[in-house]
């Protein structure tokens, strides 16, 4: 499993795994969009560029996710495919998000994610793979 969601009393937790930190960030973004929509229904028709900065790697994850939410909303898009590059010190990120315009009938959106939060925010390595997670407010 590259990504998953987990229970939080009022909201939903999202978690991405990867062989690299970058991959874990990419998969965390997939986990977040999977809360809204079945990712198999989202085609990567257009690509958007994202740059994020934060004081540390954990807050960088939240910043990355929140930028994606803002971008998706502004453009009227859903994203399902991502690629990122993270700086050595883990405080700067450059990435791409690919997706297509929201189609209310085909996408059957369950809920809107309002924001990624610092709750249960963790970025780390366990058993040889990276893990990036937080709770998103829906």
């Amino acid at each position, binding site marked *: 499993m590259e990504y998953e*969601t987990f229970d939080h009393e009022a*909201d*939903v937790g999202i978690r991405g795994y990867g062989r690299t930190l970058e991959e874990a960030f990419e998969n965390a973004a997939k986990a977040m969009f999977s809360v809204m929509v079945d990712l198999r229904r989202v085609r990567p028709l257009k690509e958007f560029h994202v740059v994020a900065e934060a004081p540390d790697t954990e807050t960088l994850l939240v910043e990355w996710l929140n930028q994606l939410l803002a971008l998706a909303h502004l453009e009227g898009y859903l994203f399902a495919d991502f690629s990122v590059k993270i700086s050595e010190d883990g405080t700067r990120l450059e990435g791409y998000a690919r997706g297509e315009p929201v189609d209310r009938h085909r996408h059957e*959106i369950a*809920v*809107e994610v*309002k924001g990624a*939060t*610092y709750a249960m925010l963790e970025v780390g390595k366990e058993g040889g793979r990276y893990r990036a997670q937080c709770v998103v407010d829906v």
Partner: protein
Amino acid sequence: MELNSLVRKGEYEWEIPKRGDMRVPGRIFASRRLIEEMDDKVREQISNVASLPGIQKASLAMPDAHWGYGFPIGGVGAFDPEEGGVICMGGIGFDISCGVRTLRTGLSVEEVKPRIDELAEALFRKVPAGLGSRGKLHLSMSEIDDVLRGGAVWAVEQGYGYQEDLEYIEEKGRMPGAKPENVSSTAKKRQLHEVGTLGSGNHYLEVQYVSEVYDAEAARTYGIDKGSVVISVHCGSRALGHQIGMDYIKELYKAAKKYGIPIKDRELACAPIKSPEGERYFSAVAAGINCALANRQVIAHLVREVFQEVMPEAKVEMLYDISHNTCKVEEHRVDGVRKTLYVHRKGSTRALGPGRNEVPRAYRKVGQPVLIGGTMGTCSFILRGTEEGLEKAFGSACHGAGRAKSRRQAKRTYRGERIIQELRRKGIVIKAHSYAGVAEEAPGAYKDVVEVVNAVHSAGLARKVVQLKPLACIKG
């Protein structure tokens, strides 16, 4: 929650004794059963809030409290700026000023029931809801600034509703201190097409009727009686509020470090009220509140248009408009001294007692209406604020039922189509943009609103006035 960690102060009042670096005790208002069902995380979060600088009297939780972000949802904390008090992101949240507005219609349940399908369909068509929906208003960046400064007052000036509506909105429809320049252009851009939209998740528009009257005098004062039909709208500041949260969580996290505020949980990111960062955040929150007030004012206008078309005999008037996720400047008595406090209410409602200036003149004798939304297909309540509530909880009450099942559990347990059919059999019409959304918001996914409201009533925080039952529910 373990009962032995609490000291019982009354049948519906439980104290978390001050320990460690807590500056004040914690206090939970709830029945024994609600306490037993409450997550232990709530106690941890109440204790963390109790350790923030400048907190007054006690860190509070309402009967519907559940695990939130820094603050529990259903948490209340009042801070004194003169004692280094802070303004805290966790005490307000992402959906700034999410709230409920209730409108009277002057119609009875007998008059509305035969027309309910037509009415529900017209409301569903008229009020934009669900993800990706756009409002009828398309604003420029400078017009958004006017919304953020003017709130519902702006909406009325634009022809959405009437001057007299404003009397029945907190802060008379316009939160002072809003500074649009402290709201990012991303936040504003995200709102250009969203004013007058309902949103998704737990937001809704319901046609309801008064099914039970507990306090006939107060009900009369609020202009309703048994069988009266009302409309309740539950929504907030939409994307603009979410973006303010995203923008400031970073800034407040840095500020807490800069001012050496020890926070045990990153979600409690905060800044002193009297600091440039704190002042900036407060002015942005005020702008977010105005955005929500304008939003609900425009939706109320759309509701009026629907009635004009479908049932023109209706007289749609404001009952009241309350907000849940706010920080407001209020006067309260602390140990006999009048103080100006910044009261954070995260997932809880202002419930001011009789005599307070903030309460509309027409309601001042009985207290502020407290609008409590139940879940789709169950029931809602209107309560009134009390003097006791002012003493005990800075004039605060619960905001809803609170979730019992997580969204994932609910989605696994329920099917949206089936819930709509079941409610249909009970005579309730559901109009929704997403079946999955309906499943997540299934009545069984929430705590029993009756028990939560009874606890608020019995604790004296607010008193029951009427119960409302749904006829139709529009969801995002």
